[in-house]
């Protein structure tokens, strides 16, 4: 048998095995669904959800709304925590990465220890830790910590002033101003501090990749430390930083699904509730996967576009 014929045979066998396997699973599933009287299809999305959602962001929602709307609220919560998290994690991670390379020994050792500790503890443990810290160990609103004027930390959440609207204590809680629920605050803190540790390492590796001669040349041209970093080192380092950085953004977004463990109503926890109520597990898991795959693929498409844009002419692959 020739090599080519063998190749065709192997491929045909694999395709047949995959199709048969999937078909077998689908057939089993159909039988099981029928036996257990579980509906299939996405018609349930238009039925009344019947559960309340703790925080709905900018959108209105009540228990009489449909599952589709509940899932959309969940998605908006996921995107909200991911978007804010990405910005804050980038800022913190960049500062940490630069601090590690900076001239101050104390600061660089401290940043190194931060990275080492945070990277080596599961995110879920850290989320639980932040959550009990906020919900059990912070004082009640009446005795809230007040680290900055107008900012209050309490076991009911974190309150901060918005322009022309400061939080005031009324009854058992604060009203007015901006507020973060304990769940959101714990999730955001956990995601940001954890991801920042990875970003710090990426930034550090990127900056170290810039040849020393570049820095020396910039300094001898009379640029200051700040200008050297901003105008010479970072633009070159970015080329190496951006690809792993986008995959960290993707990780942060995927990790936001751990919200289900501390009760922040993200997409996964709402889909989980919907699955428990309707029994339609396949549709639930499929919609979670479809949403995350869409996010992943669009971020990688963006990364490809960006890479082509920043690539050096002639080095573009």
């Amino acid at each position: 048998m020739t090599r080519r014929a063998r190749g065709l045979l192997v491929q045909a066998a694999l395709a047949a095995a995959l199709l048969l396997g999937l078909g077998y699973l689908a057939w089993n599933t159909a039988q099981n669904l029928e036996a257990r009287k579980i509906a299939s299809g996405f018609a349930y999305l238009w039925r009344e959800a019947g559960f309340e959602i703790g925080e709905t962001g900018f959108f209105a929602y009540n228990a009489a709304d449909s599952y589709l709307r509940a899932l959309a609220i969940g998605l908006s919560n996921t995107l909200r925590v991911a978007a804010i998290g990405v910005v804050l994690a980038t800022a913190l991670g960049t500062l940490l990465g630069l601090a590690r390379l900076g001239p101050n020994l104390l600061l660089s050792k401290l940043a190194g220890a931060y990275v080492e500790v945070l990277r080596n503890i599961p995110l879920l443990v850290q989320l639980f830790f932040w959550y009990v810290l906020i919900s059990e160990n912070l004082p009640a609103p009446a005795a809230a910590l007040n680290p900055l004027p107008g900012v209050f930390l309490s076991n009911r959440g974190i309150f901060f002033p918005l322009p022309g609207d400061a939080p005031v204590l009324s009854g058992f809680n604060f009203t007015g101003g901006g507020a973060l629920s304990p769940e959101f605050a714990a999730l955001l803190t956990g995601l940001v501090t954890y991801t920042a540790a990875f970003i710090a390492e990426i930034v550090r590796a990127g900056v170290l990749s810039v040849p020393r001669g570049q820095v020396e040349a910039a300094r001898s041209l009379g640029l200051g430390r700040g200008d050297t970093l901003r105008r010479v080192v970072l633009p070159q380092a970015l080329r190496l930083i951006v690809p792993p950085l986008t995959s960290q953004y993707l990780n942060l977004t995927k990790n936001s699904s751990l919200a289900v463990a501390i009760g922040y109503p993200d997409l996964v926890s709402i889909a989980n509730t919907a699955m428990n109520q309707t029994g339609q597990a396949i549709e639930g898991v499929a919609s979670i996967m479809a949403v995350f795959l869409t996010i992943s693929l669009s971020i990688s498409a963006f990364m490809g576009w960006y890479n082509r844009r920043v690539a050096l002419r002639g080095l573009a692959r």
Partner: protein
Amino acid sequence: MKWLRAQLFSNWWSTLATLAILWLAWKALPPFVEWAFVDAVWRAADPRECRAPGAGACWAFIWEKHRFILFGTYPYGQHWRPAAATVLLISLWVFSSFRYSWKWWLPALWAAGLALIAVLMWGGTLGLPYVENERWGGLILTLLLASAGIAFAFPLSILLALGRRSGLPVVRAACAGYIELIRGVPLISVLFMASVMLPLFLPAGVTIDKLLRAQLALVLFAAAYLAEVVRGGLQAMPRHQEETADALGFSWWGKMRLVILPQALRLSIPPLVNTFIGFFKDTSLVLIIGLFDLLSTIKVSLQDPAWSGFGAEAYLFACLVYFAFCYAMSAYSRRLERGGAPRLLAQS
């Protein structure tokens, strides 16, 4: 003095940072040390001792619950069995970290070790009472999920990586599709798939228990990530290795098994260790689908009303345990990157 000046006070910003750090340490460290050590309650017969005014951290909580945290709901009188299994499993890992042990017999040793652990944990022979795996829990469950996960995912990942680089379009598309699908979705959705969807996939009358379903999900998940690491090793191989093997008349499997993989896998050992650290941390997610791993037993301990409210202590303890394992592995991985594994015996 000069050294100190260069390191800490080289310019205004540096001085400012040093002073800020010293001030923060001055403000935060003494209260923390007081809470965690000086005023801490280490042993208490009664949780009220921890709630006395002025009491610091309640480490007595960990002491009170340590049997449950370590062994979960395993029968109390049989706790020596998971304890022995834990020691055995950790010894296997430590032994495998020495370069001396990277021989053909290592997989055989692991198979024997895992078989012994299975006998210890399940029992039912040698006069050991049978313990169903619904009752396994604590540290051994975390270690087992991670170890068995890697043991099964690794061979699968090699196949996936080879498939993704194969010249056959159908094989390549199937492997690439699988890898990208799994890597694109969060682990929790794969775990949900195993815990709620898998029972629907099976023919009527066939059931797989929760632990094995979670293990299956972890294997499928880890395989996709490991496959990318192995692929990195394969890509780093110089092209002439493959061409030489072809010229010598090796078959495809022979070429891979005898020429390419031994070199490519060696190249990918440091990133493999890093992937393994990530995977070890990820096993904590089984808590969400209701398995009693280490994190889960710690969380459940907090539900005892007599001892509730010591969450900070409990999770600090969890941080410490996970950190000890992950730090040891990452220190090992750094050492590998610098120049090879420690040798068990001095060799020439």
